[in-house]
């Protein structure tokens, strides 16, 4: 006799339910059973070993990753947990950085001891966050986002133009040149003036923050934030003081950002307006969204991925591998049958050689340029057209066509998709070898922007987040 529908069957089906599907499924289920405390310790242990294995340049990137991770978990508190869209988060980071710089450098000839400056800066950042939360009482969603975005812009304008403000005749912020000579933290007689020391400081702070935030998440405050995010009106009716909690979320997020800012200065030995541009805010968002909004491990993972990407892209060899592997993965996920995938490869080979043959027949070898200095590039050189003089112009047209082709691929189905994929992939590879591989910073921006768009459409919960049900 079937017992479908009986309560015990329903209970077991919850376990049968493959929350994690795909090839990563069993691994995820296993990971879930490990308590999060252990996972944190393992992460910290691995990270602690990292500076011993890499040169200083690598440690510097590690620091960037840790700074980004702290910012990501701070932002997660505001956006992921409380559901408040804060596009001005970067201003808290800047505020903390500049405030610390002003009291720890020759800019104003003020040199506060670390045990004074850090608590003051963090408290002041929290206060600023609380202040900025006031508009959130009346503004929600898009409007709050815009307001906070503009606040960040105002912050930047003030920082850069401070000395030119009417009635001001001290150079508080160093204008467009920022503040240099920012002193490192001094703790227990140690001066944290090397990359390694700052790395370990950041790791320690990150570990503490994660533990503390995890505790808060599982407590009444965390629940209240989640209720606030789910349905603010209903939460208010269930005794949740929503305005106070919004303020708390902003304050906590801002405090974390401010704290992170105090370490940026020492690491760069200066703070500059360029550190706090919208580009960086997008980077933090990209890290958080990619890793999984609402998830602390997600935020950290996303931050590491995003921080190391530019380095990977900078090295043409590894960048190439990344590109081609991603392309292959995309291909496989876009096509249902193995026959289709094979057809694409065959089609590509034919298309590429045919095109090359035709063009070389019309013009001669003079249109060709040298292959890039990577293994894959040289491998593909005889198939792909790597151009010489017309490289830039042709790449531009190819880029536009490739983007159009990709959009078309999304819309097309079945064998039409296969047919469209052949020229599109070819163009993509063409653009890569002839242009993108040579311009890592633009590629990075393209990548981040594209990742945000694609993630939202395909997997809004990121890598480690959970799929949410939204009231439409």
């Amino acid at each position: 006799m079937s017992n479908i529908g009986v309560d015990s069957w329903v209970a077991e089906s919850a376990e049968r339910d493959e929350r994690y599907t795909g090839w990563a499924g069993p691994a995820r289920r296993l990971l879930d059973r490990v308590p999060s405390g252990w996972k944190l310790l393992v992460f910290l242990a691995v990270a602690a070993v990292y500076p011993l294995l890499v040169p200083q340049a690598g440690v510097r990137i590690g620091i960037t990753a840790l700074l980004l991770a702290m910012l990501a978990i701070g932002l997660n508190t505001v956006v992921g947990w409380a559901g408040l869209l804060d596009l001005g988060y970067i201003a808290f980071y800047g505020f903390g950085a500049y405030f610390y710089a002003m009291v720890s450098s020759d800019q104003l000839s003020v040199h506060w001891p670390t045990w004074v400056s850090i608590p003051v800066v963090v408290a002041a950042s929290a206060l600023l966050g609380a202040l900025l939360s006031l508009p959130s009482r009346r503004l929600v969603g898009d409007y709050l986002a815009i307001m906070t975005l503009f606040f960040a812009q105002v912050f930047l304008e003030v920082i850069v133009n401070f000395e030119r403000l009417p009635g001001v005749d001290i150079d508080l912020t160093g204008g467009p040149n920022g503040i240099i000579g920012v002193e490192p933290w001094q703790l227990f007689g140690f001066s944290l003036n090397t990359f390694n020391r700052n790395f370990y400081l950041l790791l320690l702070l990150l570990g503490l923050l994660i533990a503390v935030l995890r505790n808060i998440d599982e407590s009444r405050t965390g629940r209240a934030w989640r209720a606030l995010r789910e349905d603010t009106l209903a939460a208010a009716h269930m005794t949740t003081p929503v305005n106070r909690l919004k303020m708390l979320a902003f304050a906590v997020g801002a405090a974390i950002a401010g704290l992170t800012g105090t370490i940026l200065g020492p690491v760069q030995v200066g703070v500059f307006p360029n550190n706090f541009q919208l580009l960086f805010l997008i980077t933090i968002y990209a890290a958080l969204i990619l890793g999984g909004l609402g998830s602390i491990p997600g935020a950290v993972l996303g931050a590491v991925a995003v921080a190391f990407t530019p380095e990977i892209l900078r090295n043409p060899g590894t960048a190439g591998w990344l590109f081609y592997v991603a392309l292959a993965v995309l291909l496989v996920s876009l096509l249902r049958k193995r026959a289709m995938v094979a057809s694409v490869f065959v089609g590509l080979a034919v298309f590429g050689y045919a095109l090359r043959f035709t063009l070389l027949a019309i013009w001669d070898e003079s249109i060709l340029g040298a292959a890039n200095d990577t293994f894959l590039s040289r491998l593909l050189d005889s198939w792909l057209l790597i151009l010489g003089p017309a490289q830039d112009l042709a790449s531009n047209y190819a880029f536009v066509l490739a983007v159009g082709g990709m959009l078309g691929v999304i819309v097309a189905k079945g064998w039409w998709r296969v047919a469209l994929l052949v020229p599109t992939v070819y163009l993509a590879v063409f653009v890569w070898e002839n242009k993108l591989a040579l311009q890592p910073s633009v590629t990075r921006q393209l990548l981040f922007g594209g990742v945000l768009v694609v993630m939202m459409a395909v997997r809004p919960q990121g890598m480690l987040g959970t799929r949410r049900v939204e009231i439409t």
Partner: protein
Amino acid sequence: MEFLLQQTVNGLTLGSVYALLALGYSMVYGVLKFLNFAHGEVYMFGAFAGYGVLTVLGGPTGLLVPVWLALTLMFVGAMVVSSGVGLALERFAYRPLRSASRLAPLISAIGASFFLQAAALLLFSANSRSYDAPTLIPIANGLTIGPINVWAVRVLVIVTAVVLMVLLTWWVRSSRAGKAVRAVSFDTEAAAMMGVDVDRVIVVTFLIGSALAGVGGVMVGLVFGRIFHFMGFIAGLKAFTAAVVGGIGSIPGAMLGGLLIGFAEAYTTAYISSTFQNLIVFGLLIAFLLIRPSGFLGRPELVKV
């Protein structure tokens, strides 16, 4: 007095451009209740498209066709390219997210904006381009109104903007499609139940809003000379301010807001300092959002519990 009048003309010119951009924001918000962050990039691509057409036609010095034809083709080219970008945005970045949370389309829009800026950087490099308008439309041609001389190019901008806005208002009031747009703005579900093809209305809205932005882009090129890949960002913020100040979702509001912001910027630059023009505009936005989020002509949102 002369100076004031000159600044007023500047304000009017700037305001016309902002109004065209603000219309795109307002219309899209009206039908989708969503702020299209990437609208500034649509405008930027329009400006570059106009430049491209100009170059193909021989550039300002070696024009192969009469000036009026060149200008018309530039505007048309910009409208085509901008509409293309806008439609692609709607179809691929926003439509899949119609039923998602508030957060998702916003993030997608930010990502798209970023992507488009990078694409522009890739295609056009970081160098700015110049329309070289004074060669195209010599300053000598102009209107003399009272004590001031208004350059022909500014007259062109203002007149074109006014004509387009009049056409748009007429279209929204009288045509069937315009009524459909208004219906969807007012109550999407009810409109759908009355047989309005909401998807099509949204596409049309994006088309028109983006085309107007494209025109705005060419205008900026003509009046201010230089265009660069990043121009969409700040202009977008200001046009957005204009839309909010005038009342987001309201077409006359967008026009009013655009003019106000244009004047605010012109007078600030002239009488205070250009350093503060951005600050003043941003400050205006923050003030409005706090005090009167529905702007001058917008409808306050009533939410049924």
